């Protein structure tokens, strides 16, 4: 009897819970699940100006076209390079900043506040700022380099393939390193100072204790920060759209710019869907790879530790 009434209370709770979750789930299905599933379906059709924007079933032809589409692989390579370089540099710099912010010093709170600001600002506005900083005629970067005598004539930063990539990566590092510092700082604060004390009594140098205590204990935060940043950087749009628009000559065109162009400029919705599906799958694959790689590495560090 009691069990039965317990069950009904529980059942009632579960029902209440269901109603409380329902609006959120419906909204997430509408905004996330529907577009992805819709793209999966539409990628089997041709829907573009040639078909007068009506969907015509063409099977896997969008995917075969994609395999031979040099522009897609070019954008994929640009994206992978951008993502890898910026995330690695951001992790290193973010770690350094977190270590400084973790110390006790006068004005620490002020510096912590300053160090979040870049992350909180709108990327597109920040991109405008960097475009101006890297301007070929009036930009301050050229001005400083000229004054230091490092260059003889102004560099056309956003106009040359290599320097344009350097510029967008630099801007991205500026914008998102704070996010990593915040996460790593939280991790640092949870490490007990007694550990360092005991370790330094055994004669360890600060460098050794960084390697043997800080890094392994911080691994969960590092993995999470890397994963989040990886996914965000992979889908980067606003920064590059505003700074270079993908130029010069496609040198900074990332996958999301190409997807945007196929849908919004060429009105090629079928092919755009195929691009979305393939990018989605590659992203999921990369995330799985990333997680297992980092996990293996943290396990190795843990075994070294013990």
């Amino acid at each position, binding site marked *: 009897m009691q069990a039965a009434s317990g069950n009904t209370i529980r059942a009632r709770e579960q029902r209440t*819970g269901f109603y409380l979750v329902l609006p959120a789930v419906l909204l*997430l299905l509408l*905004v996330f699940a529907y577009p*992805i599933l819709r793209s999966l379906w539409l990628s089997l059709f041709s829907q573009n100006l040639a078909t007068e924007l009506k969907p015509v079933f063409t099977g896997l032809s969008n995917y075969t076209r994609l395999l031979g589409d040099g522009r897609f692989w070019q954008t994929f390579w640009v994206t992978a390079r951008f993502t890898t370089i910026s995330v690695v540099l951001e992790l290193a710099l973010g770690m350094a900043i977190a270590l400084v912010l973790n110390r006790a010093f006068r004005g620490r709170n002020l510096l912590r506040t300053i160090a979040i600001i870049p992350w909180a600002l709108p990327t597109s506005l920040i991109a405008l700022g960097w475009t101006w900083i890297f301007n070929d005629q009036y930009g301050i970067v050229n001005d400083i380099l000229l004054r230091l005598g490092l260059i003889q004539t102004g560099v056309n930063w956003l106009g040359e393939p290599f320097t344009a990539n350097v510029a967008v990566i630099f801007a991205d590092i*500026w914008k998102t390193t704070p996010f990593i510092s915040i996460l790593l700082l939280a991790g640092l604060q949870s490490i007990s100072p007694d550990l*360092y004390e005991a370790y330094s009594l055994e004669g360890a140098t600060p460098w050794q204790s960084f390697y043997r205590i800080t890094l392994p204990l911080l691994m969960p935060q590092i993995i999470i920060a890397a994963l989040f940043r990886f*996914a965000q950087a992979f*889908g980067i749009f606003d920064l590059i*759209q505003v700074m270079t628009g993908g130029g010069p000559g496609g040198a900074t065109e990332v996958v*999301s710019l190409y997807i945007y162009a196929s849908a919004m400029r060429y009105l090629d919705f079928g092919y755009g869907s195929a691009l979305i599906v393939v990018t989605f799958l590659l992203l999921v694959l990369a995330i799985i790879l990333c997680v297992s790689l980092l996990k293996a590495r943290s396990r190795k560090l843990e075994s070294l530790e013990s």
Partner: protein
Amino acid sequence: MTTITRTLPKTRSTEPAPTRKPSFDVRQILFWLAVGAIALFCLAPILWQVLTSFKVNEDIAAVPNVYFPTRLTLDHYIELFTRRPFLRYIFNSALVSLVSTLTCLAIGAPAAYALARLQPFGGRVIQAGILLITLFPGILLLQGLLEIVQIFRLGNNYLALIIPYTAINLPLTILVMKSFYQQLPKDLEDAARVDGYNTWQMLTQIVMPLTLPALVTTGILAFIFAWNEFIFALTFITEESMKTIPVASAQIGGASVFEIPYGPIAAATVVGTIPLVLLVLFFQRQIVQGLTAGAVKG
């Protein structure tokens, strides 16, 4: 070993690696150099934009650069508000961000509570789904959402932004709020039940007031994301009077392609970032809390 460590005088607890050598001074100098470098790195690009926005055009286009303006001017700001509808853009951004943030909290907080306490049917699947979609870039949703916007004729309507912004902020809101509810002692709710409160009364009268700080934390994060969003605002809104600040600023153009109005662009950057700088100044601690709770506990 342990007894020795205990009897040793404690160094300041936030000092991870106690310095024992007298070579202290060099280290201290290096440390303060690092502090200065971080501050400069974070602020310099913004300060350069601020300086540019107050310079007269001759100073902006001076080669070599004029670092500190000879004459200050407000012309670029005046242009934003007289020759361009910047007040309207600010209003649009504020409205869309506020409404989507409040909606997100209204939908997300109950869902988070249910996931933390009530074990609803399919709760685990929902949680896994939420974790997965935090990693989705917006561009993958753009084409599907564009269709929805067209079907419901939401183009150039605030709802075209409010709905996706609400949804995009939901995962983080649910994760942060859920970790908050899990830390809340369950005794309070049990006591309320004994006193004869039903679930709804308990939520609104007991749990809600306790949750206010966590709601503020997640609300600030949601507001920041909504204010900064670019790609949906660029695609779903084409009418000039409906645009948000990030898009409108990026589209500032001159009389010709060769004449880029750097001054007004810099001023627009400053105008669009001020609300967020203020948020960071006042809510630094909440932002840090929210980000770490959302990422680490999720």
